[in-house]
């Protein structure tokens, strides 16, 4: 049986929460559960994704579903939303046993879900996108009125006539939320909603969610960000390896304690050295201007910075502001630059070199996408080790792969970075996201590069793996490597970087020492000026998240 820490019929009262009953079904008020899962089991080939999970969601409650990557959170909500069928177990909705045969059934019952990846047509307007999800025969004029009303009532500013491709990720998320609210749901499920938002956008999302809950709707909030859960959620269910390991009241439980519940042992925060070194500049970017490859890409405009020996420079910014283009320009995967001197690796003009030649100069790269970019899913770990390491480490003999040495290197990465895998011949696809990321980062770091460029180093990675990767980056910098981190996770940048610059709309701000900037300043730069007006009470992240 799961450990029941502080289950909460009393909880909502403790929180001082009084949901407004909008219908007469809730005879028992707060205590009547809206949704109950009883012993839900879901097996996938080779893994038990949900192991006897019990879950209760009550009206007016914001319940967090906390867990590492691969803990079974997404599987569980897909079962609730009818996308997957449970192998065993019982689902009860408003006291009645139910079978949720598909998302359409779930929506009819009053369950709505906002996914991590949006399903929007970029070339259509907001209204057209919403219309597509409505029953046939919905009048566009009437719908427009409802959209405007809902977006006003819930503080989700939206212009129904705008085309989606002109909108930021945060704005797109609003479309998805409005689309859900139009269904008048009793239960709203959100999958890692803040992973794509600026701090200010997150704060405004939280106030919307609080309002939705005050109306008596329940919210199931999937996250692995502890501070958010503390700030927003009334209750939390912690999953680990498919099982419910605890339930708790996030406002009374420390972030550290919740992290322990999530990952099972104490996560170590990365330690940063105090010694500030400003040695030789190993990576120099000077006046880098590059037109975007496709119409929805971002042009890079006159980007200049340098990364010194032993330094970690962080480039913050919301995805879609030129990160992909900058990464491709730096790694050499994009088209050759007009000016070979726009990028200098150890002083050598690298603007027109391919990735292999740049590696030979001493650079290493970790792309944002792990799957089939940083690694090949259908290949073994030793083959994946060979992918980028064979030239620098000489893992070939007479044009053939030197298998013993390749395996040896893969083994070294697995051991050195605590990668959980069945061995060097395990296929990359059999690894969880965090383990695969550790493998990729380890593969690059153990080649002892002089320059490392890494994009979103811990995106979607659990707390334990993230801490290990952060520590490895810091240790690498201490050994004299110049590290460039492109990330949209501000906590990460503040935790490990020496200096920070913000990439917004293809332009890079002046890099500044990390001690000299606040999270708020960076957040505002990230959002870009046009979004500032839309942010209510831009007063402070600390105040609202604390």
């Amino acid at each position: 049986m799961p450990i029941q820490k502080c289950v909460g019929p009393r909880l909502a009262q403790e929180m001082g929460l009084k949901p407004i009953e909008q219908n007469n079904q809730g005879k028992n008020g707060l205590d009547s559960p809206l949704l109950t899962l009883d012993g839900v089991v879901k097996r996938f080939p080779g893994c038990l994704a949900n192991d006897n999970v019990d879950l209760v969601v009550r009206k007016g409650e914001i319940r967090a579903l906390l867990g590492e990557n691969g803990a079974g959170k997404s599987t569980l909500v897909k079962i609730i939303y009818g996308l997957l069928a449970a192998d065993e177990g019982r689902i009860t909705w408003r006291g009645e046993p139910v079978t949720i045969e598909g998302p359409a059934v779930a929506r009819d019952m009053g369950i709505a879900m906002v996914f991590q990846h949006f399903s929007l047509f970029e070339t259509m307007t907001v209204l057209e996108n919403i219309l597509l999800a409505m029953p046939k025969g919905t009048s566009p004029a009437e719908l427009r009125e409802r959209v405007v009303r809902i977006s006003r009532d819930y503080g989700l500013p939206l212009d129904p006539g705008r085309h989606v491709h002109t909108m930021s990720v945060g704005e797109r998320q609003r479309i998805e939320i409005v689309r859900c609210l139009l269904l008048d749901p009793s239960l709203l499920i959100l999958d890692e909603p803040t992973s794509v938002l600026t701090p200010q956008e997150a704060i405004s999302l939280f106030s919307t969610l609080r309002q939705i809950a005050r109306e008596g709707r329940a919210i199931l909030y999937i996250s692995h960000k502890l501070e958010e859960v503390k700030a927003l959620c009334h209750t939390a269910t912690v999953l680990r390896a498919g099982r419910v390991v605890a339930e708790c009241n996030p406002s009374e439980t420390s972030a550290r304690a919740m992290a322990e519940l999530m990952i099972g042992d104490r996560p170590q925060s990365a330690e940063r050295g105090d010694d500030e070194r400003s040695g030789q500049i190993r990576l120099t970017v000077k006046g880098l201007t590059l037109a975007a490859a496709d119409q929805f890409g971002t042009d890079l405009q006159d980007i200049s910075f340098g990364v010194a020996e032993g330094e970690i420079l962080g480039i913050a910014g919301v995805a879609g502001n030129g990160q992909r283009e900058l990464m491709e320009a730096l790694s050499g995967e994009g088209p050759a630059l007009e000016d070979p001197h726009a990028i200098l690796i150890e002083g050598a003009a690298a603007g027109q070199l391919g990735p292999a030649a740049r590696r030979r100069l001493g650079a290493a790269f970790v792309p944002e996408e792990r799957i089939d970019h940083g690694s090949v899913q259908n290949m073994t770990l030793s083959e994946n080790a060979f992918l980028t390491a064979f030239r620098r480490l000489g893992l070939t003999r007479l044009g053939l792969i030197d298998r013993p040495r390749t395996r040896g290197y893969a083994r070294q990465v697995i051991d050195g970075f605590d990668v959980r895998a069945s061995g060097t011949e395990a296929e990359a696809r059999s690894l969880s996201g965090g383990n695969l990321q550790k493998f990729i980062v380890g593969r690059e770091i153990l080649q002892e590069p002089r320059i490392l460029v890494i994009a979103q180093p811990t995106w979607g990675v659990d707390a334990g793996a993230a801490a290990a990767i952060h520590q490895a980056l810091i240790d690498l910098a201490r050994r004299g490597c110049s590290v460039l981190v492109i990330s949209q996770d501000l906590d990460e940048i503040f935790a490990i970087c020496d200096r920070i610059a913000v990439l917004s709309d293809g332009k890079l701000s002046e890099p500044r020492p990390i001690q000299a900037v606040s999270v708020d300043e960076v957040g505002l730069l990230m959002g870009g000026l046009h979004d500032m007006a839309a942010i209510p009470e831009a007063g402070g992240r600390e105040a609202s998240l604390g």
Partner: protein
Amino acid sequence: MVSLEPRGTRSTLYSYLSPVIAIVLTLAAGIVIFSAMGKPPMQALYVFFVQPLTTAYGATELVVKATPLVLIAVGLSLGFRSNVWNIGAEGQFTVGAIFGGGLAIYFHDSESILLLPGTLVAGIVGGMAWAAIPAWLRTRFNANEILTSLMLTYVAILALSYLVHGPWRDPDGFNFPESRVFPDAGIMPVLFEDSRLHLGAVFALAIVLVGWTLLSRAVIGFQLRVVGAAPAAARYGGFREKRLIWFSLLLSGGLAGLAGISEVAGPIGQLLPTISPGYGFTAIIVAFLGRLHPVGVLFAGLIMALSYIGGETAQIELGLPAAVTGLFQGVLLFFLLGADVLINYRIRFGRARVPQGGAR
């Protein structure tokens, strides 16, 4: 209700089982087809697939037919793995025969032992040259190699036709559209007396081993596999895409050229207007049936060779039209592609339901 459900991961079992399923379904379809044509189906199947193997000569003929298929399909497999779709092996086969055959005809008085090696090398060069055209068009202008290589096939066949009707026609040949018969020094040695089994079969076996090594052990083979499985990862690894396109096309073109010259310097012995019953196209089926693996290609080549011989036997014994060979080959490819769906999907009968209260 029957529905397809994603497996999540590729099924290794079905990637090997799928060719077997396809062959069984093809035989079943054969019963239907033969019945529809008014032939006793079981006897027809026997004549088609078993009778050719009952004699030693039939068995060697099987290898003779499998030789060009395997040579071509090994090259195609490596290219297909890197998403380079050379559909024009038939053309490269033909140009290989023209280049090599041209040399043999020019030196028709020669008795040099260097003539055969020279002829073979010329054949390989011819196939490579013909494949270099789509490679150049693809890397220079991003022209689709499927279209260019296919269209060049017809150019090659017409060129051969022109040569044997015109300049290369045998002066003592009574105006038949045929070239001179190659001199003995330019003919592939036969392996067994009284058979047509020639040195090309040894080449095919060697190429299977070389292809296998290339694919599983060599750096270039690794690069081809990465390009095919994850193009972004190949760019990240610093593999030059153009180089790999050139390599794939030159390799498959060269092997098709070798197959072409082995055929005209082997069983045929001269240049004719038609030198191939579509080996270059059938080899595409062989490559997929053999799971794009050189060893699989060896077995698949033998199976497809059987369809050629069986087709000939069926024409003689049962009076079936020659088209029945192509029909069986097409049906087999059809079922193979259909069965390949099972690698990534499983069939589900009826809808899955949540069992009520099964947990406690």
